[in-house]
């Protein structure tokens, strides 16, 4: 207990220290960007895979030493800009407005960078769906629905919010459209009250209403959207996506449904960042709009994945270990042992991140499978390989005499294993097993890569809403720490109760 209090105390110190050091950041002499002509020689931030990224690449590596920093989300780039890590951000106009509205110390340069068309992406061979959507878009344009959506999200201040699209009550018997998006691109798609809303969502809902279809939305990284649509994980991608030549090589696009501009965001030299007090900060990050729910839901998913993955890991791990040791002792299971060895080599020889991507995008490419199930399977099978080797070492560490004594009494191999060897092995390997499960818990934090809203991603979503990294991430870290401490305490207790047969 004392140890745990000390740890908690250290975390708090760390937190306070971090808060202080944040606010003391000095204003270094940074490049000032006032127009497109100033871009060479600066550090430009973009969201990876966006058209802003494509345009900015023209500057990268020029003789002025321009540097291109690519971020997973627009919000990350904005944050980097606020922290003076970069000099400007090139991004779509509407998200830029949303960002600047929230961050008074930033501003949009009046000089526009480029004008472009947004469209919905569809798999190339899926011309039928493309034609259907085009037809619906044309109708929506004609009856003014699309215009109302535009006004509602991207119109003047008077128009904004005045024309909400209402989901129509129609018969939806023509199937489902799964829409891939990246919900950190306000006003096109973003989280509000734990739901994904925005321009593209309304637009696709209107399309589905027209077509008599259901709409299902999947949130993922922006640069994963095209591959999700290609592989059939999603039917369409609607994420403020600009049609350009690179993308046309791999994916089809519908007609454009709106236009946007790429603009440049810079720090506003006249305004210094307003500072929120800690309590305001906590309120903004966790209380406002019920944002703590992102963490709560994420925590539930993380726990579900971890618990079931541990169970798979234990069952398969023990089976593999028993096959392996039985082969070494008696020469049984020759083929099975070979298979187990291949399994161990492959699983331990590749990153779990790649494994989960392969399971989701390759093995279950054509199936609409629950992501939590994919994560449980991926982490469970991965853990099984490590558990197997831990258990095997535990079995081998039990004195050979124990085994001989059992067999000499006429006990069969399975009886000897289950009654004598395994109970002793488990006692020996408990610390190593506990360690493995702690690792497993922490590794689940990569679930976000298949768009699963786990604990880590919950924190990241809050971060994208509040442009504040510190509190959401520290909160996430503290929750992981708390679970790990609970897990460790549980393992220790189990260890003590199993130690009764020692002096």
């Amino acid at each position, binding site marked *: 207990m004392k140890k745990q209090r000390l740890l908690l105390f250290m975390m708090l110190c760390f937190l306070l220290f971090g808060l202080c050091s944040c606010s003391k950041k000095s204003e270094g002499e940074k490049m000032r960007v006032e127009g497109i002509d100033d871009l060479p020689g600066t550090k430009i931030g973009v969201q990876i895979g966006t058209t802003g990224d494509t345009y900015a690449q023209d500057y990268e590596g020029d003789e002025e030493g321009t540097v291109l920093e690519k971020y997973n989300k627009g919000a990350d780039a904005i944050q980097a800009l606020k922290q003076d890590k970069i000099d400007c951000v090139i991004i779509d106009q509407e998200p830029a407005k949303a960002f600047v509205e929230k961050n008074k110390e930033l501003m949009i340069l009046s000089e526009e960078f480029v004008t472009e068309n947004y469209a919905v992406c569809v798999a190339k061979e899926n011309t039928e769906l493309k034609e259907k959507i085009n037809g619906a878009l044309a109708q929506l344009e004609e009856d003014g629905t699309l215009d109302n959506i535009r006004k509602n999200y991207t119109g003047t201040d008077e128009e904004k919010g005045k024309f909400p699209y209402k989901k129509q009550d129609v018969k939806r018997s023509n199937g489902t459209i799964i829409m891939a998006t990246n919900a950190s691109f306000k006003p096109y798609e973003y989280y509000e009250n734990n739901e994904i809303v925005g321009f593209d969502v309304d637009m696709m809902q209107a399309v589905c209403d027209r077509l008599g279809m259901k709409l299902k939305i999947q949130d993922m990284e922006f640069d994963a959207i095209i591959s999700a649509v290609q592989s059939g994980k999603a039917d369409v991608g609607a994420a403020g996506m600009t049609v350009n030549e690179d993308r046309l090589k791999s994916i089809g696009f519908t007609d454009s449904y709106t236009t946007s501009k790429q603009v440049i965001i810079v720090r506003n030299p006249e305004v210094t960042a307003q500072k929120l007090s800690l309590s305001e900060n906590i309120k903004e990050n966790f209380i406002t709009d019920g944002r703590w729910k992102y963490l709560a839901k994420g925590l539930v998913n993380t726990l579900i994945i971890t618990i079931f993955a541990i169970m798979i890991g234990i069952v398969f791990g023990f089976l593999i270990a028993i096959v392996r040791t039985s082969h070494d002792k008696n020469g049984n299971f020759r083929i099975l042992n070979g298979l187990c060895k291949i399994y161990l080599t492959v699983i331990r020889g590749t990153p779990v991140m790649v494994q989960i991507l392969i399971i989701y995008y390759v093995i279950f490419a054509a199936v609409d499978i629950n992501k939590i199930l994919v994560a449980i399977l991926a982490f469970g099978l991965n853990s099984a390989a490590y558990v197997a080797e831990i258990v095997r070492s535990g079995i081998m560490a039990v004195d050979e005499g*124990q085994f001989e*004594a059992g067999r*000499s*009494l*006429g*006990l069969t191999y399975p*009886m000897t294993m289950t*009654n004598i060897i395994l109970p002793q092995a488990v006692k020996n390997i408990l610390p190593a097993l506990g360690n493995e499960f702690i690792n497993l818990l922490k590794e689940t934090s990569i679930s976000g890569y298949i768009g699963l809203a786990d604990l880590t991603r919950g924190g990241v979503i809050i971060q994208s809403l509040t442009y504040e990294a510190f509190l959401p991430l520290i909160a996430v870290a503290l929750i992981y720490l708390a679970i790990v401490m609970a897990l460790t305490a549980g393992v220790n207790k189990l260890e003590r109760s199993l130690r009764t*047969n020692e002096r």
Partner: protein
Amino acid sequence: MKDNTESKGMLENTNKGNENVLVEVRDLRKSFDNHEVLCGISTKITKGEVLAIIGPSGCGKSTFLRSINLLEEPTSGQIIFEGTDITQNGVDVNQIRQKIGMVFQQFNLFANKTVKENIMLAPVKLGRMTKQEAEKKAMELLERIGLPQKADAYPAMLSGGQKQRIAIARSLAMNPDVMLFDEPTSALDPEMVGEVLNLMRQLAAEGMTMIVVTHEMGFAREVANRVMFFHDGVIQEENKPEEFFGNPKNSRLKEFLAGVLA
């Protein structure tokens, strides 16, 4: 404690008829890699006999003993136990082992079980007794070896001598027809050797068939009906204890005895 028939006079039993042969070993050979440890061992053990096997370390005496219950798989040769050649394929080894008790140098009590559980495990798991019967039997055996108060202790809390007596009780719980002892006192502190040898003496007196690999010459001379000297994987000499110790013929045996008795 043995409720079957063979508890009759057993001190003079070296020349019994064939129907009394419990174990017969024919030309037993065992090699590890290319090294031959047993080079053709043949002998017969009759019911109620106590056979002591002595010899320098590495002579193959332990391997021979462990071959009898197939903890070591013979390379060639036959072991006929109660009329069955147990080296043949298709023989239920586990069934045979239930009738052959074994006591190890390192005791090998199950570390994760209490003393009572150690004794009860095999009879219950193998369907020989119900849990209640096994528990009763275990307590009887513990009474007999004078350790009833240790019934719920774990092996790690016991002295070596106590452990070995319990290991013997564990074997007895299966009512074996023969018991193999693999240097049962070699890992004991000297003051504990006596308690284990006394228990073995009792068993012999009750008519248990025993094969004992040992360095305890006193025990071999006093309790055994026959003593066997192993060297280089061969039986160099075997005889009744008086002859064996009083008038050894084999030169290596003479040397060995001179060494250990000095």
